[in-house]
């Protein structure tokens, strides 16, 4: 068991970081904000911590705190224009945000180290701390799920005009979801920089965006299990596919397509839904909602 842990320790640690970033991504999506800004938040968190710790000798906990504040502040500011947009437009706007962050990280070289990034970041994170951070995140999201904020998020995702008609100040709640996403993203970005020795802008580019999104879409957008399942698949997949050598990319692609096509809610969510149905022993559906029912009736 211990030897297994030592052989796979980095894999486990990266898995935990991926779970954290997955929750950041999931929070936005489950509230109906089609954001892919998690990579940008984690870049801000990572750089804030790295710069404070390596340049100014700020103690690690204080640096993480600053990262959290930066993540919340930036995501709050960003939520204002984002609330005016919908669906794919939000995705593109957040993509633009990430690209701007990266371009600025490259440009302000004296401050951020440009393409070379920042190295010599002390490695103070280990499996224990990362696990603690993930557990705290899970507790908060579990609390959300069991109380009114979670209900509002679910309503926003499914039909925000219904939520508004019940008195929900929807822009505030969109902002809340986005700020929480920014907070978690920035904190896990900071933790990541305290694990990998050096950070550079490409770590947070298009591939990072795709990675967090994939974790959530594969795992599931709504349940606690979602990001865990998604991150687990993403962690194990490269290992399983290793014998395929250069063909791994093909396998990854095929798996993404298959999972989404046949388990559209993601592996984790589907599992949770299946368990709930089993426990309740209720028939799956009574009758399908009539197709086009909402189209025909028009005043």
């Amino acid at each position, binding site marked *: 068991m211990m030897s297994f842990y030592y052989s796979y320790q980095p894999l486990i640690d990266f898995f935990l970081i991926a779970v954290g970033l997955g929750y950041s991504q999931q929070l936005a999506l489950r509230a109906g904000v089609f954001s892919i800004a998690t990579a940008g938040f984690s870049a801000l968190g990572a750089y804030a911590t790295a710069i404070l710790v390596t340049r100014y000798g700020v103690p690690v906990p204080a640096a993480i705190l600053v990262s959290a504040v930066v993540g919340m502040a930036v995501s709050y500011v960003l939520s204002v224009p984002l609330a005016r947009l919908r669906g794919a437009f939000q995705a593109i706007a957040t993509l633009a945000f990430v690209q701007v962050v*990266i371009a600025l990280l490259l440009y302000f070289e004296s401050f951020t180290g440009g393409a070379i990034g920042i190295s010599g970041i002390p490695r103070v994170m280990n499996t224990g701390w990362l696990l603690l951070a993930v557990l705290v995140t899970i507790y908060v999201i579990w609390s959300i799920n069991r109380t009114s904020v979670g209900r509002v998020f679910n309503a926003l995702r499914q039909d925000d005009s219904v939520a508004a008609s019940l008195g929900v100040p*929807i822009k505030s709640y969109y902002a809340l979801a986005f700020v929480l996403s920014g907070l978690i993203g920035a904190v896990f970005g900071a933790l990541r920089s305290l694990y990998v020795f050096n950070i550079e802008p490409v770590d947070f580019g298009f591939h990072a965006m795709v990675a967090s999104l994939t974790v959530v879409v594969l795992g599931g957008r709504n349940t606690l299990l979602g990001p865990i399942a998604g991150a687990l698949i993403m962690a194990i997949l490269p290992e399983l596919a290793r014998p395929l050598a250069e063909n791994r990319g093909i396998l990854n692609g095929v798996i993404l397509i298959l999972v989404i096509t046949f388990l559209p809610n993601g592996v984790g969510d589907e599992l949770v839904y299946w368990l709930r149905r089993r426990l309740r022993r209720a028939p799956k559906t009574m009758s399908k909602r009539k197709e086009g029912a909402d189209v025909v009736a028009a005043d």
Partner: protein
Amino acid sequence: MLLQQILNGTVSGAIYALFALGFTLIFGVQKLLNLAHGAIFMAGAFIAYYATAQGLPFWFALLLATIATGAISVVVDFVAFRQLRKSGHAEFAAIVTSIGVDLILMNIAQQVSNTKVLSFPFGTFPVKFFSFWGMRISLLQLTILGLVLVLVLALAYYINRTSFGRQVRAVSSNEHASALLGISAAAVYRQTFFIAGALAGLAGVLIGLSFNSIHFMMGEPFLLQAFVVVVIGGLGSLQGAVVAAILIGIVQSLTIAYLSSELSTAIIFALLFVTLLFFPNGLFGRAGNYAGGSRR
């Protein structure tokens, strides 16, 4: 230098337009972001390269690549999107499945090319320069501008003046209702994806030729660029995409010329962000993208 840079920007912009047209066409019909579009673009360049390497004449390779990428695009639709349309989870899921397709195509290309950067042999296209008013323009650049102009006009005619355009609009506004009118949504999707893929493939060949570089990751910067183009132009708007593409080509050129090449990405994406802020539907987009909950 100013005029020369505007010219450079216009030529780059014209190619962005070819790429972005297909992207925006697909979005216009079914509100999906096709992230595999960059890989299809890349496939066009690869097919043309290997066709010329087999000794086929360039014009034939160009034609072959255009048709083949159109076909690939139809297959992509079949593999990645068709099932999603049925289950109705399309918006999120399409992003993931198209990333899946993107990975597969890039992986194949990487292995075929052995991760090398390829380029068409010298003399594939005659190297000729024309000078006027202190500017230089190559025969290739002129050809690209001409070709893009012809294609855009042809596409505009096809979309606006033939029954296909009506069918596209019908299917995009309500697939269910259009079926009642006897319009086959499947056929419309097939045509849309074919045209989009063919345009992307053609753009790939032209880029590979004019910038001398064919690489399995060549689609990525163009895909990111396409986001900017289609948003500024208005998602789904064809004329908007063309105007925005050329605008962006010129802005980029001038940023590099007068500010710094390092800032050009930041400026382009900041422009995108500002556009979304003040014109959430782009410069030419249709209304209806606001969040609910306000009086309108």
